[in-house]
């Protein structure tokens, strides 16, 4: 009878190829962390609601608090919705972005968006309204302000997210939802005012809005 080690090695012969990679694990982990944060947030909201109710009952609370804009914060990005309908998106260049999360959060804030990883979708010719929709902030290169009211009907914001050998890059442009193509490389040369690019190498972030 063969020894145990040989038997165990025999049992794993012809193993199938691995069906996941590190990026899949990171995405799952970020989702899990986000879920935990949301649950913790719900708990805090419950406590806050309970406190507010108690204060109201005791007559200590005056006017109801003014409606505040929403903030969605994940480890990869922060999306702040302002009262004037604009939103500020800040990308954390040190954390891998989860495309579907950003896409659903943007849409939740009334910003029609398509977020793709490893691909960038764009319309040709590029849409001239982009500069009215997205504006960069020189003081904070990883931040962009989005004004959905300036988006013409039938358009969406397209975000392409790429991992670089020493960091990551997010490129944004405006697309016509009925006419666009997707490419597996980040655009290098673009017409003025057509894209906004955030490139992060560790803690060093640069941002370029062409035009």
């Amino acid at each position, binding site marked *: *009878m063969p020894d*145990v*080690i040989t*038997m*165990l*090695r*025999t*049992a*794993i*012969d*012809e*193993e*199938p190829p*691995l*069906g*996941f*990679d*590190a*990026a*899949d*694990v*990171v995405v*799952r*982990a970020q989702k*899990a*962390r986000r879920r935990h944060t949301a649950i913790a947030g719900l708990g805090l909201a419950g406590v806050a609601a309970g406190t507010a109710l108690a204060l109201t009952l005791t007559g200590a609370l005056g006017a109801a608090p003014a409606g505040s804009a929403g903030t969605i914060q994940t*480890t990869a990005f922060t999306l702040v919705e302002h009262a004037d309908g604009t939103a500020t998106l800040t990308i954390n*260049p*040190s*954390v*891998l972005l989860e495309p579907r999360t950003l896409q659903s959060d943007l849409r939740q804030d009334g910003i029609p968006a398509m977020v793709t990883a490893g691909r960038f979708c764009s319309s040709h010719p590029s849409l001239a309204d982009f500069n009215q929709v997205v504006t960069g902030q020189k003081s904070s290169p990883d931040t962009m302000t989005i004004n959905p009211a300036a988006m013409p009907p039938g358009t969406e914001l397209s975000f392409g997210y790429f991992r670089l050998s020493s*960091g*990551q890059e997010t490129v944004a442009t405006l697309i016509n939802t009925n006419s666009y193509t997707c490419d597996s490389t980040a655009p290098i040369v673009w017409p003025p005012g057509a894209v906004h690019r955030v490139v*992060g190498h*560790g*803690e060093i972030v640069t941002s370029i809005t062409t035009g």
Partner: protein
Amino acid sequence: MRADAVEEFTAYVAACSPRMRRTAFLMCGDWQRAEDEVQTALVKLYLSWDRVRARRSLDSFVRTTLVRALIDAQRRPWRREQPRAVVPDRAAAEPMAVEDRLTVRAALARVPPRQRAVLVLRFYDDCDVAETARMIGCSEGTVKSQTARGLARLRELLATCEPSSAECSEG
């Protein structure tokens, strides 16, 4: 997680995933479930990365999570293994090496889960008694006794297995 930590985590996952999946497979006999359990363990590792990395115990953390999840699964009726006399989905005419593999898998599947985990950790992953005891959450004495019983059970089962059909009697 910072970019350098993500890079380090990514490199570790790429290096450890295949062998961790083999360990999980030997404990559960199902490649898909082994893959799921490894991913779950790696997600837990990501969430505890700084703490675990500082202790330099990455492999131990992942193996412990795997082993405990797979042993605990036996307590859940809907995940409990259903030992079969014949390994399913076996091709009719296979070479001898494949028959050997199926026979070993069939026998291994009939070794009780905790004994199987001890055998895999000690003989396949080359963990010592103390390390195995820590991972399973039992005493070193229990590891020794489970090793002896597991080996005896495996040999007994292999003696009753029909190499030509990968069938094992209850023994």
